[in-house]
């Protein structure tokens, strides 16, 4: 195996480990820090089914963002839904034989990458053009968009323009999964794409991308509005009660 393939092999093991472990630790943190008070943003559902429906609407339709700003909603939704289809399409590099529904999504996933990058460009335009958003942006906010766009553009270039040896790419990733390491085609564009994706995986648990797990733990969205019906007390508050109550 050539040096580049070997380096990417180790990079991907490392990136996968950091992503999985980093996210697991963060999720454990969110799950274990108590929520001592009932703070759903009302009007809120009064029972668990209602909460699940509210969360599904937030997750799939970006309901709150829709109420807030139609442009951010449009660009944000284009990016995220595009990304979802693109990710699902990429399952074909990890499954053999390819699942039927992944094969079905294949053409949609291909064009979704265009939607994804357009959405990202829209978001970046706003970040630069709207004075309020420019004010709140740190360097990392710009670089994150640059990174995602670069990943999208290198992917698009391979899908639509120059192509790459996808059979060998698939062999590489199946090899990673089954510890039967295979070389990658020697293709700078592909290297670029893969290094950037690994970088994204490495950054994920240490960045604002934590909004992905975070949104499931947001008490203003995931709590039911039933404080009068059910007493809600956290462990540390209970200790307080026992101590001097």
């Amino acid at each position, binding site marked *: 195996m050539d040096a580049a393939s070997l380096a990417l092999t180790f990079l991907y093991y490392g990136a996968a480990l950091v992503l999985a472990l980093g996210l697991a630790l963060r999720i454990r943190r969110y799950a274990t*820090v108590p929520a001592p008070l009932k703070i759903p943003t009302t009007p809120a559902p009064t029972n668990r089914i209602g909460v699940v429906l509210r969360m599904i609407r937030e997750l799939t339709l970006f309901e709150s963002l829709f109420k807030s700003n139609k442009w951010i909603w449009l660009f944000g939704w284009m990016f995220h839904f595009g990304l979802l289809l693109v990710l699902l399409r990429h399952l074909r590099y990890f499954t053999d034989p390819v699942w039927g529904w992944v094969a079905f999504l294949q053409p949609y996933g291909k064009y979704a990458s265009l939607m994804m990058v357009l959405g990202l460009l829209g978001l970046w335009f706003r970040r630069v053009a709207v004075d309020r958003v420019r004010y709140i942006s740190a360097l990392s906010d710009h670089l994150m968009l640059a990174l995602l766009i670069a990943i999208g553009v290198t992917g698009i270039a391979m899908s639509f323009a120059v192509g790459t040896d996808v059979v060998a790419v698939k062999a590489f990733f199946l090899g990673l999964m089954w510890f039967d390491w295979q070389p990658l085609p020697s293709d700078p564009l592909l290297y670029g794409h893969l290094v950037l994706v690994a970088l994204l995986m490495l950054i994920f648990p240490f960045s*604002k991308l934590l909004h992905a797990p975070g949104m499931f733990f947001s008490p203003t969205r995931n709590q039911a509005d039933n404080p009068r019906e059910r007493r809600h007390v956290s462990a540390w508050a209970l200790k307080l009660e026992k101590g001097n109550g």
Partner: protein
Amino acid sequence: MAEQPAFDIPELKPYPVIPKLVEDAMAHSQPFVAKSDFQGPLGFPGELVDDWQDVAVKKMGELTDRYRSLQVFLDSCVKCGACTDKCHYYLGTTDPKNMPVARQDLFRKVYRRHYTFAGKYLPWLVGAEDLTEEVLDDWYKYFHQCSQCRRCSVYCPYGIDTAEISMAAREVMDSIGKGQKYCNEIIGKVHTIGNNLGLPEPALVDTLEGLEEEIEEDTGVAVKFPVDQKGADILLVTPSADFFAEPHVDGLIGYAKVLHEAGLSWTLSSHASEAANFGMFIGSYENMRKVALRIREAALDLGVKRIVFGECGHAWRVAYSFLNTLAGPFDFLDPNYPVPQHICEVTHGLIQEGKLRLDKSQNDDMVMTYHDSCNVARASRMGDVPGGQFTIPRDIIRASCNHFYDMPADTVREATYCCGGGGGLLTDDLIELRVKGALPRMEALKQVVDDHGVTHMAAICAICKSQFAKVLTYYGFQMDQIVSVHQLVSNAIVLTGSEQEKEAELSEAA
């Protein structure tokens, strides 16, 4: 206008415009710092401690261990900008640090510096900063330019609530000895005297006797205001402003008439003669709990069966959302009623049952609109279904008045704007902020005044009422254009055996 302000009053525009930001436009605004006498009793150091940086950073860590909201919110913001035009203080002051995300970032940048990998090693990349004196100054200024109204949390795709960050920042500042005078003095008064205004029991009883006389003069009916009456069914807990401020007191008269007419036995408590709980504003669970426990003690002591809260916004949040948590369980009360209830729920129920006679024409001199108070709208509920906090007060107004128009849809219900004085900012040292923060509400009011000839705005919050009574005049309105919802009920209700009832019977006969 009563006084010449030392600042420019924003202009009321026919259509809301998102202003261009002007850096440091409100950098001069900050409330008085609490004196050491008022810090100690609340469990805070009297003045800025020597190693305040270390203490503050450690406290931040304690709070992220304690509150999932804070931990998740600090990590989750993607700086999308959805909240940037949602805060009334930003719209009114144009200071970018009054954009919810920028306000949060004052806290978040220090959290990042000390508690995240990126902030520790690459602070320049992610905008992480040490807690310098300058940053602390910004905290003190801008976390006292947030009324914790939660409007931003409605619009955030992750539900990030700046109120939670604001409360945490104030708690950190209290823990290093930099407390806010207004809030901390008031919490002190609640504990030493029983209410925010420091009204002792004899003065309270005297005031209430005056109200009894007033009602009897008006109606010929002896409506009572019982205090500390053991064995009464209902403990009424109401903001102390209801005892004498205008238009609050007219609301209190309304509650008394309703309870009297329905034949309900009720009492006020001198021990818990205050519904407000400023412990929430300073983010202190311990102080909030201590204030809330007075109500439990009063309920036990008086042997009541129900607890009902008067018109007060943040008090209703603490009551509805937190009381069961802080001071429950309330298994000693009548299980047939929710604990606690809002006076509007009681009145609404009685109207539904046909137990109140309301003569709407008594309010014909007014064309009404209604201001949803932030804490009622976005942090609580009334009745059995979500949104009852919007429909129940409006139903009461419609049952009491002939003329009612809502303000524009993006300024009412869950989208309501704060009055500009909530969250512990209702103090004269912040008057410029209060006037400017009221701008979005004033624009919405102006619209229904122009379109529908609205003359009065009703509210169910003591802070809103006090705030509007003060700031309406700055925008060319009259201070008495703000009224209590139960003031309208009070005007319309026809008490059994009253002069009004006799008149009505006479006019029917004729």
